[in-house]
């Protein structure tokens, strides 16, 4: 996205937020359109299946709508939104008693990727790679999974990850290293 486009987007976003605070659901709908993919992707990477990711994304936006009055406009809206999504997903993972994937997800209900190629063979190869990445992520504890997701998919700095997850920068550094070491061992075995 060009700098001018990014500036225009931020201005529009401030307008939408203000209108949504006044009760304009159409304006809130614009925010949903703008951020549904980042929120869904985070939820999918955290929870590991499409059904739960949809539920988590819905719940995240509902919480954002209900608590929009508490949003600090000094902070980027995206950061605040993804922080809510991260915390919800971490809580959900912690409440899970048994880790399982529903049968329909084991058959791999297709998920759409940003930048999917029209070439079917390339799509299949890419899907297999993505499933492998997802299996790697699922082997991590919730907070480490969140830290890795925010680092690689959202290019968050250590400070942004720390703020989003309620950790110190030192803890983020330690968790990223621990997660990477664990995943690297899995990659080496395979």
């Amino acid at each position, binding site marked *: 996205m060009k700098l001018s486009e990014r500036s225009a987007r931020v201005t529009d976003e401030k307008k939408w937020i203000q209108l949504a605070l006044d009760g304009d*659901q*159409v304006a*809130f*709908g614009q925010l*949903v*359109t703008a951020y*549904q*993919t*980042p*929120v*869904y*992707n985070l939820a*999918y*990477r955290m929870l590991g299946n*499409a059904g739960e*990711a*949809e539920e988590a*994304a*819905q719940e995240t*936006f*509902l919480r954002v*709508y209900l608590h929009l009055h508490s949003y600090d406009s000094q902070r980027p809206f995206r950061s605040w939104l993804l922080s809510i999504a991260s915390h919800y997903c971490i809580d959900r993972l912690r409440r899970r008693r048994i880790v399982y994937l529903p049968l329909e997800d084991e058959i791999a209900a297709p*998920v*759409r*990727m*940003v*930048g*999917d190629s029209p070439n079917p063979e390339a799509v299949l190869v*890419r899907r297999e*790679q*993505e499933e492998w*990445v997802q299996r*790697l992520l699922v082997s991590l504890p919730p907070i480490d999974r969140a830290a*890795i997701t925010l*680092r*690689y*998919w959202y290019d968050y700095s*250590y400070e942004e990850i720390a703020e989003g997850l309620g950790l110190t920068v030192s803890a983020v*550094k*330690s968790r*990223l*290293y621990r997660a*990477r*070491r664990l*995943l*690297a*061992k899995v*990659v*080496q075995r395979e």
Partner: protein
Amino acid sequence: MIRCEQTGEMMSARLDGRLDSTEIALLEEHLAACSVCRAEWRGLQALDRVLASAQTVRAPVRLRVQIMARLSRREQARCAIIGGMALALGTVALALLVLSPIFVGLLDVMGIAPVLISGGLETVTHLLALLGALGRALLVMVETFAVPLACLGLFGLMITLALNGLWIGTVRHLRVGVPGD
């Protein structure tokens, strides 16, 4: 020269561009001398390439519609509850207004109203007497007017429920449509 225990987090930080030139030099000096750490560094680099190439999963088309429908339902429920409470309170207020002449009449009949109006220290004694008298009067009323009072209460409840249903129907009819995709 740094030790092996220190290199782990340094290697991870190097992947994130968090090391300065001095730290990078120290790390590279160690990696040149330690095959174990060198193997770990290669493993971390391989993992970094895999994760960096992973794509973003796109949200399903129906997600936005689901979210907006859920918000709309929530707003409708909130309006119905507020409207229902307002109607209920209004009905109670109306009922009290209708019955107020009866209560005022009761006070007059018992000669309490003139005493209250004149005031003075006797008022306290009379207020206590009033409470007693009211209690007795209520018992008499209940005994005499039990059936009519019950009918009035039931009628009021039916009116409240009917008006509440009308209110919910009006809110649903006037609600703003959910924007489509």
